[in-house]
């Protein structure tokens, strides 16, 4: 996988290979995450972006094994070399919290309203570090709070006495007090106001300096990814369509979906409105071959018949796209394959 920009050979913390997470439903399996590969090194921040229904949340939860009944995982998922999918449930439980942390979108629902903050910390620490002394608990808790900017005067307060942004900081502090190697943050700032969101993103960005933690930041907000992440993975319909250094992916997007997504994002520099025709597909019966081909402006006839391989491209990113591959002379397509794809026109009835 593409190394970090400064070429440090950091240890690989998470490695996913052909990872699949499918949900069971009455109609058949929903292929929410379908053959995903990526690696994450120590101290790295990987942004996972996509629109609703692309599977990014499922991937985040799937990495930690927090899936509902009826869901199943397949493939290889290695944490510091150990394949987590082969571990027993008990062993997975032990890893969770201690080595693998999670930050959720709405912190209020994750905190026990009847327990003080001090009690939350005590419980967390005692479960994973048996025999820890009371003074040590207090010292570590206050330190975690300080790093998050929560005053020690609030140590004995209840969760509802905190505002939204403070609660999220609390959530992060609780997650980090155990010094996990890997943290998944699932839309951590979506429910927060603009200024508070910026504060939290700054905190997450600085995590690697204070804790040397690897972070998977799941969001639909491309701006956050551009500012805070080293690398970015773009997901569409259960697949990672492009992954690479954030600067490279944003400046030179290789996959048409990435390009169209960036074009349709409304930012302060937007001069015209752009959108993507059609809607994301139903994941029980996704389109054959490349899943984006019904909506892709660059689609060729090969895109509907053969699945594009994920290839390393010269700029440092990696994309699964026939057009991108052809553009960089990495594959050769005959005239019939590279002819523009003929398909039905998309109307509003098909839109998201």
């Amino acid at each position: 996988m593409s190394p970090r920009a400064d070429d440090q050979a950091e240890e690989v913390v998470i490695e996913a290979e052909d990872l699949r997470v499918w949900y069971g439903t009455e109609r058949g399996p929903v292929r929410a995450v379908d053959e995903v590969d990526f690696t994450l090194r120590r101290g790295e921040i990987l942004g996972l972006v996509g629109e609703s229904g692309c599977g990014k949340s499922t991937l985040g939860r799937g990495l930690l094994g927090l899936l509902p009944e009826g869901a199943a995982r397949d493939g290889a998922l290695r944490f510091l070399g150990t394949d987590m999918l082969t571990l027993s449930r008990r062993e997975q439980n032990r890893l969770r919290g201690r080595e693998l942390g999670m930050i959720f979108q709405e912190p209020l629902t994750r905190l026990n309203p009847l327990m003080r903050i001090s009690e939350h910390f005590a419980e967390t620490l005692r479960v994973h570090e048996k025999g820890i002394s009371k003074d040590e608990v207090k010292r570590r808790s206050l330190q975690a709070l300080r790093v998050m900017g929560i005053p020690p005067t609030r140590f004995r307060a209840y969760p509802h006495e905190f505002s939204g942004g403070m609660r999220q900081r609390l959530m992060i502090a609780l997650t980090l007090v155990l010094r996990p190697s890997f943290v998944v943050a699932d839309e951590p700032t979506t429910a927060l106001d603009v200024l508070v969101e910026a504060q939290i993103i700054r905190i997450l960005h600085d995590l690697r300096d204070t804790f040397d933690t690897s972070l998977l930041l799941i969001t639909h907000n491309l701006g956050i990814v551009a500012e805070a992440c080293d690398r970015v993975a773009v997901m569409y319909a259960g697949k990672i369509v492009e992954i690479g250094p954030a600067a490279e992916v944003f400046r030179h997007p290789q996959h048409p979906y990435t390009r169209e997504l960036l074009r349709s994002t409304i930012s302060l520099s937007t001069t015209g409105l752009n959108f993507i025709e059609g809607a994301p597909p139903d994941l029980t019966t996704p389109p054959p071959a490349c899943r984006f081909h019904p909506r892709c402006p660059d689609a060729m006839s090969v895109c509907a018949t053969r699945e594009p391989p994920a290839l390393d491209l010269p700029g440092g990113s990696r994309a699964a796209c026939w057009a991108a591959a052809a553009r960089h002379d990495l594959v050769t397509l005959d005239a019939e394959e590279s002819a523009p794809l003929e398909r039905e026109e998309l109307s509003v009835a098909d839109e998201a």
Partner: protein
Amino acid sequence: MPTKPDPGLVAEARDLSVHFQLQGGALSRLLGIGARRVKAVDGVDVQLRRGEVLGVVGESGSGKTTLGRALLGLAPATGGTLTYHPTSGGTQEITRLKGAELRRLRTDVQMVFQDPSAALNPSMTIEEGVGHPLVIHGIASGEDLHQRVVAALERVGLAPVERFLSKYPSDLSGGQKQRAVIARAIILEPEVLVADEPVSMLDMSVRAKILQLMLDLKNDLGLTYLYITHDLASAKYFCDRVAIMYLGRIVEIGPTEEIFAHPRHPYTQALLKAIPEPDPDRMVPRDLPRGEIPDAAEPPLGCSFHPRCPVATPVCGWEQRDLKALLEEHWVRDETADYEAERATVGDLDGLDRPRTTARLAGKDPAAVRAVLDSVRAADPEEPLWGGVRAVEERHGHLEVDFVDGVDPPLRASHGVEVACVHYGADPEWPAEPGEPGEPGS
């Protein structure tokens, strides 16, 4: 996107206030006293000009949603006036309309809601739901009704219409539902549309479609929009003028171009800095205002933004709650400070929770408390709070800190926009040094 608005006022708010009574504890409910009031909208003056798109931008608690609802008469005003000037002539005082008159207003002023899934009646088909406004006001029925519904659906792009008429909202996607909501809003041929975060719950690739639709409708039907949002980026594209709201007040208002090119109010500046931009050269902003939006039931004294403002002055309304926040921040930031000892010296800080210009510290040893305050000040002498301290004296065995009475600046003109800040205006309370915010043209 600038358009030329027709001259003439469509609506005007003067000192408009919408206060809500919060449910207090059991005792206060029983006795009917002591319940807190939330000043959702607190003395707002604003004009809505015909044909324009006025953006109202703010975070939660800013009052932007309440302002929008007040324009429809859905939020009862507790003070001030809100007048509506229909094209047919005359003036209506929205705050005083009731019953049938209020319902008639709703044929002129309509609303598009934030959550398209929640805004449509789940037990009505699209045809019933979109056509229901005409039924309610007795404007059309039978075949005429059907034709109008079809026309409205075609206008919003829900074509082929037959595929949507008999569907229920749960069968539609987010973008399609929002189109239906818009169809329902325009079927009465209103003059004004209040759009409350119409695209914030939609995916990025769909937002542009709906915004484009709204722009097209505005031009085709001659609508005036009040666009409520927390997303400055879409406001920049969509609106002719923008008003920034904070805790129930408008803190800055002016033409979009000017506001974004030269943001004046510190809050506006902070918002613009904080918006994440998909530009890989941008880094995470570091110099953001501290703290969070305060309690709307007891807003800060003086200027509501002062506890968080990076350029606050001595007259911005310092009070004892700021001192408490400062001490807490000190204990967070300064690792060398002996938290336990200082906390014991200063005493319990809960007494500093009400808005007062005098802080009475609970510590029993005033000299030691003074020493702590001095060390806090020495750690960060630039902290604006200290400029607002009038006196620090020992009274009745406790140390008391008196603050200067603060100023609550109203909106005043400054180079084409209106700003509510002591640094700006023809006669600012705190004229700026060169290089600092303030006149001229900074």
